[in-house]
C-alpha cells in the first residue's frame, strides 16, 4: 500500500497549484465574508473555472471534458480547498447534472445541456427533497400529469441550494401514483420557467437554501431523462456523484476547522490547557482518518472497485470533527459565544450554527448509520 502521489499525479498537482495561485490572487478569505459577497465570488470563481477549462475536468473528452479520472478531480478540489477557494456557483451543474446527463441522457439532451454547463451559462439546482420527503426520498409526492407533448407538474420542493441562481432543475416527480413508490418516479431536466422560488432563512442567518413551488409547470417529453418511470435509478446515479464529489472535499474542511480552532485557542492563550490539547488530539485522529479514508476510497475506485458504504463512515467522522471543533471554538469566546457583536465571534457562531447541518444534509447521520448497519454489519433494515 503506497500513499504517495505518482509522478504523473504530482505533475498534475503542480499544474493545478500554479493555475490556482494565479486565479485566486485577488480572491479574499471566504470564511469572513457575508453571504452576498460569498455568492459574488462563487460566480466569479465559476466563470474562472469555465474559462480555464477546468469545469469538465473529469467529464469524457467526447462530451467536451478533459477525460481525467476521479482522482484528478480530487486533486483539483483538494488544492482548491486548501487555498480557501470559493465554492463554484454551478457545482450542481458540473458535478451532478453533467455527469448524470452523460450517463443517462440522449444525444439531443447532451447536446442541449452539456456545452452550456461547460461555458458557465447554464446553472442547475437539484429538486429532490420535499417537505414531506426528506430521508425517505422515494416517498415524494410532487405529481406529473400527462398532457399533450409533455407533463404538467404540481408540488413543492425544499432544501434547494442555489435555486435562486439556477435556470434548470434536476427534478423528480411522480408520474404513476399507482406504481410501487420506487417505480412511479420520473426524472426531468426541467427549465425553471414557472417555478416559484422562496429562500429559507437558516439559523445562522444565511439564505443558501430555498423552497420551490410548482403550480402547473409544463415540462416537455424531450426533457424526461432516462425514461418515464425510471427516475429512481437515475436519481441514484446523481446521488452517487453527489457522494463522490462531496467526499473529496471533506477532509480539507475538517482540517481547516481544526486549524481555526487552534488559532482561536492560541489567541486566547489556552492552547496549552491539557483538556484542550486532548480535545485537539481526538479531533486530529478523526480529521486524519477522513483524509486517509478518502485516499483509500479513491484508490479503490481507481483500481476498478465501487466506493462502498465506507463513504458513510467518512461523512459521519467529518461531521463530528467539524461540529465539535466549531463548538469548542465558540465556547472559547469570552462569553462562551453568546456575545456576537464582534466580527470574529459572529463569524465563529455562524460557522458553528452552519455545522449543525452537517449531520442532516447529504443524508442524515441516522441514515448514514443505517447504511453502515445494513451494508457493513449485515443487520436487517431498520427503516
Amino acid at each position: 500500500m503506497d500513499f504517495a502521489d505518482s509522478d504523473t499525479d504530482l505533475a498534475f498537482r503542480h499544474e493545478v497549484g500554479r493555475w490556482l495561485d494565479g486565479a485566486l490572487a485577488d480572491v479574499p478569505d471566504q470564511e469572513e465574508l457575508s453571504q452576498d459577497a460569498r455568492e459574488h465570488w462563487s460566480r466569479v470563481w465559476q466563470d474562472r473555472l469555465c474559462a480555464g477549462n477546468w469545469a469538465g475536468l473529469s467529464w469524457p473528452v467526447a462530451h467536451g471534458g478533459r477525460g481525467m479520472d476521479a482522482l484528478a478531480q480530487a486533486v483539483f478540489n483538494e488544492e482548491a480547498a486548501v487555498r480557501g477557494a470559493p465554492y463554484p456557483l454551478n457545482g450542481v451543474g458540473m458535478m451532478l447534472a453533467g455527469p448524470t446527463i452523460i450517463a443517462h441522457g440522449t444525444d439531443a439532451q447532451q447536446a442541449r445541456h452539456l456545452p452550456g454547463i461547460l461555458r458557465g451559462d447554464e446553472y442547475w439546482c437539484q429538486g429532490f427533497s420535499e417537505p414531506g420527503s426528506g430521508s425517505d426520498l422515494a416517498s415524494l409526492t410532487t405529481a406529473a400529469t400527462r398532457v399533450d407533448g409533455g407533463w404538467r407538474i404540481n408540488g413543492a420542493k425544499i432544501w434547494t441550494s442555489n435555486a435562486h441562481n439556477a435556470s434548470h432543475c434536476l427534478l423528480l416527480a411522480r408520474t404513476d401514483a399507482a406504481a410501487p413508490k420506487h417505480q412511479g418516479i420520473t426524472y426531468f431536466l426541467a427549465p425553471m420557467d414557472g417555478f416559484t422560488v422562496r429562500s429559507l432563512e437558516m439559523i445562522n442567518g444565511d439564505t443558501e437554501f430555498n423552497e420551490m413551488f410548482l403550480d402547473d409547470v409544463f415540462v416537455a417529453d424531450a426533457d424526461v431523462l432516462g425514461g418515464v418511470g425510471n427516475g429512481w435509478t437515475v436519481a441514484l446515479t446523481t446521488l452517487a456523484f453527489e457522494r463522490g464529489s462531496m467526499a473529496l472535499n471533506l477532509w480539507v474542511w475538517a482540517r481547516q476547522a481544526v486549524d481555526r480552532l487552534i488559532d482561536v485557542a492560541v489567541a486566547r492563550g489556552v492552547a496549552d490547557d491539557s483538556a484542550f490539547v486532548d480535545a485537539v488530539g481526538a479531533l486530529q485522529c478523526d480529521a486524519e482518518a477522513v483524509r486517509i479514508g478518502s485516499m483509500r476510497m479513491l484508490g479503490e475506485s481507481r483500481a476498478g472497485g465501487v466506493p462502498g458504504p465506507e463513504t458513510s463512515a467518512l461523512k459521519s467522522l467529518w461531521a463530528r470533527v467539524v461540529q465539535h471543533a466549531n463548538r469548542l471554538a465558540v465556547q472559547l469566546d469570552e462569553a462562551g459565544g453568546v456575545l456576537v457583536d464582534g466580527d470574529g465571534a459572529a463569524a465563529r457562531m455562524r460557522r458553528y450554527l452552519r455545522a449543525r447541518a452537517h449531520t442532516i444534509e447529504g443524508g442524515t447521520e441516522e441514515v448514514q448509520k443505517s447504511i453502515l448497519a445494513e451494508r457493513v454489519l449485515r443487520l436487517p433494515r431498520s427503516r
Partner: protein
Amino acid sequence: MRATFTQEQRDIGATVGSLADADRGTARELLAGPWRAPAADGPLLRDFGLLGVPEPAGGIGSGLIDLLVAVEALGERLVPSRFPAHAAAVQLLCGDERRTGPLPDEVLDGRRVLTPAVDVPGSAGWADRVSPDPLVRTLVPYAAQADGVVALGPDGVWFADPVRTTARQSLDPSVPLADLTLAAPERTQPAGAGPLRAALVVAAELCGVAQGAVDLAAEQARTRRQFGRVIGAFQGVAFPLAEAATARKAAWDLTLYAAWAVDNGRPDAGIQVHAAKAAAGQAAVFAAERCIQVHGGMGITMEADPHLFLRRAFVLDARCGRGSWHRRRTGELRIRSRPTSRA
C-alpha cells in the same frame, strides 16, 4: 497514490488468518491455567519473522504494512501468540538506519523469541521519561516465555538483561505481564523510529481486536431475537455498532498510513503514529464494550466471549505508551505545527 493493498498483502492476511482460525478458542482456554503456546505460535515465529524488517536489519524488502496486516489478523481472533510481542521487539531494534548490521539469524527465524520492555511504572509514555533511567519496566508481555528482552531507554535501545522478573497478575491471562528490573546497559543503539514502529505493531493488534469485537457483536445482533425480531433491527442496538465499525475503520486507516509514513521517513510520521495508537486503543475498548452490551445478560458472564476482547483491548491500549498519552501527544504536535502557535 494507489492506497490499496497489494496482492501480497491480501495473501498475508488470508494465510495468517487461516492459521489463526485454528486458535480461535485459545484465549478462552488460557483464562485458567498457565500460558502455553497456541498452535500458530511456532509457525508464525518461524515463517513470518521477516515481515516488516528493513533490509539493513536483515529483511528481504517487506514493508511495515505487511507485518501489520498479519498482526491485525491475529488480533481479530485473539490469538495469544508471542509473535506480535516478538515483532514489536524486533521493530524496536529497526528504527535507526545507522545500525551496524543485520539482526541475528536466530531472532529473524524465531528460534530466539524477544519481548519489548518499553513502559516505565508511573509514566504514561516513552517521551515523558526523565533521566536517570529507573531501569524498571512494566507491562512486559511473555517475559517468562521469551528468550530475550529489548529495552527502550532515554539513550536508545538495547538487548537487556533482567536482574529481576516479577510476574504480575494480568487482566488478560492469555497475555502474561511482568515487571522487569534491568541491568544498566553497557551500550545502547539509537532508537530512531523504533518506538514508533513498535507502537504500530500494537496498534495493528488493537485494530484486529476491534474488528473481532464488532464481528461478534454483529453476529449476536443478527441472531438474538426479542420482541419477535432480531435485535439488530432496533436502531438503539444497531447504531452503536455502526459507530464501533466507524471507529475501527478510522483506526485501521490511521495505522496503515502511519506505517507508510514511518517506512518512508515522512516528517509527519511521529504524529501519525501517536494518532493511530490513540485511535486504535479507543476503537478496541469501545467495540469490546459495545460487544458486551449487545450480548445483554450473557455479556457480563465469564462464559460468553465479549469480555475476552475487552481484556485484550485494555492490555494493548496500555502497551508502548497508553492511548491517553498518545492522544495528548497528537494534540501537542498538532498545535505546535500551526504557525500561530510559534508566535
